[in-house]
């Protein structure tokens, strides 16, 4: 499988400001002074070798949308945050508008940041396309129809030309979707959310965002470790610090990098991707959290190493 991250922010999109872009340019110019950067190739090589990811790039600002390429003929996405617009433009560039496609989406829940991209999901406007919105969440259809209606949006749901189906899923029951086996799990979040484990050819990806974990409930933690069991990739809601998640932001429905490491270690998972970044965090802050999380994994490791990544818009992971 190949996993592409199109939107990685939590709560709402967080685009870079002009001041932030300028600060990156100023920093790069100062660091590059005296290095003879008189061509684009030299400048690009300097960026790759001498600047950190946060200095030379950005984690991005779109809200949750992840594509899981299962190798079949149908698309599979997780969530419809603002990142789905970038995905849809990419898909259209690949196929053109005249070749109908099937787009499967696993929707975690219906909070706005996870469905806000759907009104701008271009394939929904094109006749012949088939869009299947799968979810364990019982309010998905109502939320999507309400979002595509006045006064929130000028294009009514009934005007969308593609064939759009709402496919209810039961948690704990495996389904065959886009050539993969998909199993949902109820998560602790306001008005509920659902994680999905996606399995294909002996490989597994777990998409688990907007999920709080109660540290005083070992059975609940063990159940999630089982859901993550030996996963090749765990895309994990690490929005808050552990201290915040356990104190001032308790019951806000999110988790932390520390709990992500602990659960993945319990599960003997192979790769943890920090996801649903706090929108107030700038690139340097997210990079710092990534480095700290790698260090935490190193000092608490008791078995095989757990790879740690911080998701960014455009990240591609082969599983």
């Amino acid at each position, binding site marked *: 499988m190949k996993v592409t991250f199109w939107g990685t922010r939590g709560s709402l999109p967080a685009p870079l400001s002009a001041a932030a872009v300028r600060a990156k340019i100023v920093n790069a110019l100062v660091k590059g002074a005296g290095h003879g950067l008189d061509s684009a190739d030299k400048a690009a090589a300097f960026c790759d070798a001498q600047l950190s990811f946060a200095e030379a790039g950005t984690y991005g600002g779109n809200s949750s949308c992840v594509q899981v390429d299962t190798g079949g003929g149908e698309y599979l996405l997780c969530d419809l945050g603002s990142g789905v617009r970038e995905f849809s433009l990419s898909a259209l560039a690949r196929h053109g508008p005249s070749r109908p496609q099937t787009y499967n989406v696993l929707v975690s829940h219906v909070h706005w940041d996870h469905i806000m991209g759907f009104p701008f999901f271009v394939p929904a406007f094109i006749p012949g396309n088939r869009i299947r919105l799968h979810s364990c969440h019982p309010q998905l259809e109502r939320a999507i129809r309400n979002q595509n209606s006045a006064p929130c949006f000028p294009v009514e749901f009934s005007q969308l030309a593609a064939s759009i189906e709402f496919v209810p899923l039961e948690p704990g029951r495996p389904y065959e979707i886009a050539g993969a086996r998909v199993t949902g799990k109820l998560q602790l979040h306001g008005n509920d959310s659902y994680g999905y484990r996606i399995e294909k050819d002996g490989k597994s990806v777990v998409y688990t965002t907007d999920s709080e974990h109660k*540290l*005083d409930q*070992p059975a609940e*933690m063990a159940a999630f470790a089982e859901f993550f069991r030996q996963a090749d990739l765990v895309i994990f809601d690490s929005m808050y*610090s*552990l*201290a*915040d998640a*356990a*104190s001032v932001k308790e019951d806000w429905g999110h988790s*932390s*990098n*520390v*709990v992500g490491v*602990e659960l993945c270690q319990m599960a003997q998972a192979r790769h943890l991707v920090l996801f649903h970044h706090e929108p107030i965090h700038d690139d340097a802050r997210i990079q710092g959290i990534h480095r*700290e*999380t790698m*260090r*935490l994994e190193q*000092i*608490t490791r008791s078995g095989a190493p757990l790879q740690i990544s911080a998701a960014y818009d455009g990240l591609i992971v082969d599983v």
Partner: protein
Amino acid sequence: MEAKQTRLSGSLILRPAGRVDMGNAEAFKELLLRVLAEAKTALVLDLAELEYISSAGLRAIMIASRAAKSGGVALGVAAMQPVVAEIFAISRFDLVFPCFASCREALARLAPDALAGFDAL
């Protein structure tokens, strides 16, 4: 998990040893609350012999910290081993609890009346 206690005129030092993880975090929390009930001025957690603490263990200290605050008792953390200090920093609990390099430093700040007794140990 072993935990030695030292009583110092209204304050206590608790020295847990080994690991606090999901398996014993609840017992650790109960221990903290029991010890806290005996403290009048301060409870200092001497973590010099603590090798590892998980998220559940950190939460146990946070519960005790809340109880201490409502009871008018100061709670501080002292003498962390480097690995434990890193776990506190990465989890940001170093911003939640007063952390000190040594028990003496903790007592000097939280319970000066207990210092003489501590120095006499």
